[in-house]
């Protein structure tokens, strides 16, 4: 086990190095200059432009800037935003709980809905229940989440006036108000996840239900419910766990549109603003954070396999 963890750790470091270098390179190579964003359309002099460039350290060669950033980063200093002057680490710290909450709610809602739908589809394979649930899942998968979100806003904010469509409230400022604002974006994110998860559960369950040990359990006269829950669901949940891990990591960096639409101050909203402002250190900081979480989650998921399936542990 120790060797596995060490191996994973090495892979994490290599991944992070690649991610940071590529992000730094790509953002630096993009047309558009942070100096232009900072100066706007003012009547600038070459001296003023040079001063701003020097203040930001942009007058140094690329590799020197990257090396300096990397050196500071490993000591926990991700630098300051070029535009707002905020500490990048603080900015990430402020935004992580917001996006994590959304991602967690979305995944939780998706799993709660997906498992029964998937199990039902597998158990009633080919019957009308399977047809209806598959069609519903297909619809959920086909409609982009921002379209669903706009529809939710129309119904629940504009027409019914039940839920606010912006004005984010942090959990620390009131859980109920926070949930009123989180429920629409989280549900919009959850629908796509639910569709993916339920298809996966259905497919895995169908395969599992044809295993010999399930047939043996049936022959022993065990109830369908018992067989489904005790013998079929657990081995069928391995791929679900993998995809939950992958999608949770993906959601941390993939809520850009939903966060922008609902004006939610999370990582996605921060990232898109930083890209528009050419705020390189913020882009870099958020990207590194998301990449780290992504790799860590996947490592944890891999390790959890051994807990869920004794065969993997033994091998």
């Amino acid at each position, binding site marked *: 086990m120790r060797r596995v963890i060490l191996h994973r750790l090495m892979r994490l470091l290599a991944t992070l190095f690649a991610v940071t270098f590529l992000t730094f390179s790509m953002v630096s190579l993009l047309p558009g200059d942070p100096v232009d*964003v900072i100066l706007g359309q003012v009547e*600038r002099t070459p001296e003023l432009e040079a001063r701003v460039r020097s203040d930001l350290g942009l007058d140094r060669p690329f590799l020197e800037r990257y090396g300096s950033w990397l050196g500071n980063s490993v000591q926990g200093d991700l630098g300051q935003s070029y535009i707002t002057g905020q500490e990048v680490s603080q900015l990430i710290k402020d935004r992580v709980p917001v996006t994590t909450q959304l991602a967690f709610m979305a995944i939780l809602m998706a799993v709660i809905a997906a498992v029964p739908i998937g199990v039902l589809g597998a158990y009633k394979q080919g019957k009308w229940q399977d047809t209806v649930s598959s069609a519903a899942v297909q619809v959920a998968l086909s409609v982009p989440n921002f379209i669903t979100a706009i529809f939710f806003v*129309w119904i629940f904010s504009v*027409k019914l006036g039940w839920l606010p469509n912006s004005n984010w409230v942090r959990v620390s400022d009131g859980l109920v108000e926070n949930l009123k604002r989180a429920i629409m974006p989280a549900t919009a994110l959850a629908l796509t996840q639910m569709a993916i998860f339920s298809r996966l559960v259905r497919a895995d369950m169908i395969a599992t239900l044809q295993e010999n040990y399930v047939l043996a359990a049936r022959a022993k006269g065990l109830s369908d419910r018992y067989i489904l829950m005790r013998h079929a669901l657990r081995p069928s949940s391995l791929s679900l766990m993998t995809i939950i891990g992958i999608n949770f990591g993906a959601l941390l960096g993939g809520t850009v549109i939903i966060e922008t639409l609902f004006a939610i101050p999370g990582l996605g*909203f921060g990232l898109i603003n930083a890209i528009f402002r050419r705020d390189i250190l913020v882009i870099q900081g958020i990207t590194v954070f998301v990449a780290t979480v992504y790799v860590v989650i996947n490592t944890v998921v891999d390790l959890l396999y051994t807990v869920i399936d004794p065969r993997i542990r033994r091998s």
Partner: protein
Amino acid sequence: MRQRQLFKLLALLLVFALGAAACGGDDDDSSSGDDTTAGDDTGSDDDGDDAADEGDDAADEGDDADDTDDTADAGDEAEGDVDTEVEEEDPAIERVYGGDISVGLEAEAVSLRPWDDTCSSPCYNIQVTIFDKLMEQDVDGNYQGWLAESITPNDDFTVWTMVLRSGVTFHDGSDFNAQSVADMFPVQLTGTQGSANATSANLTGVEATGEFEVTYSLSTTNSAFPAFLSRAALGLVFEPGAAAADPEAFSNAPVGTGPFMMEKRDIDNETVVVRNDSYWGTDPDGNQLPFLDSITFRPIPDEGNRLDALLSGTVTAIGSLRQGTIRDARAEDGITLFEYQGSTVGGGHFNTLVAPLDDVRVRQGLNRLNDQETVLEALGGTGISLPGTQFFSPDSPWYSEAVAAAWPEFDFNAGKALLQEYVDDPTRSDGRAVGDKIAVELACPPDPTLTAAMQVIEQVWTASELVDVTLSSVDQATHIGIAFTDAHQAHCWRFSDDNDPSITFNAGFAPPTEEIAAAAGIPGVVSPVNWANWFNVDAFTASQAAIQTDDFAQRKAFYEQIGLLMAEEAPVWYSGYTATMIATDPALLGLASWHVPSGDLGSGLPNAEGHWSEVWLAEG
């Protein structure tokens, strides 16, 4: 059995939700507005005032103009267009103290240091609650004192003596006086905006010459200098000690003398300002300002969702610079619109230093092939924005009928004839063979309606069969950068504003390169913000002459002369004037009729920038 019950329950819930949605809200409901679909633009834009941010949403000829009684009256120029008329709030309505409101803005004000940070409409909305200006524009476009009581120039407009209001304190309790203004100057020079504005104004020194007397020294004559004291970089008053001590911290905890004080700053979420109980200002009836207890500013980038936030009561007011949003808001009942069409005009510039755009026949020809009405339709501005002919809207005192008449109108055949002349010219500047098509690259940020507008232009230019148009799309930051580096041909852009014309014209028409400056006998006078790189010695001379005098008629004649030269040489093309709006809950009153301290009406709400100190909530 249980499953069946579950399905029934789900079906019932769905039917109930849809039914409630269909019936919910009432067309006559005055507080929340309703009966609309959400705005359909899911794109977002960065900072509001940047280039080429002139409109959005798909074209829609249908227009429900002036549905609401409170919409600013339409002007005479075109049915339904946005007018800049500012109306006095009914004095009989009782002013009420108290209440908290929230305002949805199109973007976050990333930083609140007026001397350093690029500011746009959202940022100004917040800044004017915290900082007072030294000067402010009244409804007629004149500059009046705000924290200044008076400002007097010497004979050649190189020295300006300003007398300040006494009895004003900063939010931290310290006194505001002439030394405060003098101490602000070194801080301003450390900032990008402050130093650039000081350079533009030719400002060399600020000195406290009495407890409440400040003397500004300029290196050259500038009769329009007070205009700079109404702008953020040199005009907003901040506590210089706090600013100099820690500029980064100041950005999130700014200290001014304004009607509200910073309470909470959560970037990209909310900025909360609360009433300054010690504020010096009163309205013309002597009521102590401000009326509201607090204002929460929220960035809501998505245009449709911002309007929905108002309609659902999530926020009390929203701002928008988009014609499409104005069109959608006009179709709603139960909200109040404060519309404004200022002198900011959309369109684009030709880089007159590169072939074939260095030839006036090509620029004139392309202008004749600019079907403004169709472009405006693509921008969603039909019936909202007027076609542009110059840097001043028809409501501006600087507007010139002569320039409007001289500007090349859409005339396909005339445009084609001009281009044909160039194409057939053996000495054509692009070096192509006689008869070859002209190649033009047309660049614009990837906003959906801007793209639609550019496609209209592309189609008409291409239909001449004399132009190959390449459309290119880059994000806003890159777009501006390309204009600075002159790596462009035809570039969509937004020009001008409601400030004194000298602020746009002086830098806008100065020599674009050192070589041109030297050839004109004015070495060293180079402007990087001459976007079209168009230099006409007569236009430049007129722009300089216009700041040698404070006689309005003379100054207007100079700007008219520049407008006529532009019509002749066509360094730019226009779509339309930029209509803007603040939409509010009807309970919010007093927004449009803010006043300068003399009691005169202020300049209204250009660029959806509200003055919130005279606003109150009807219910308190």
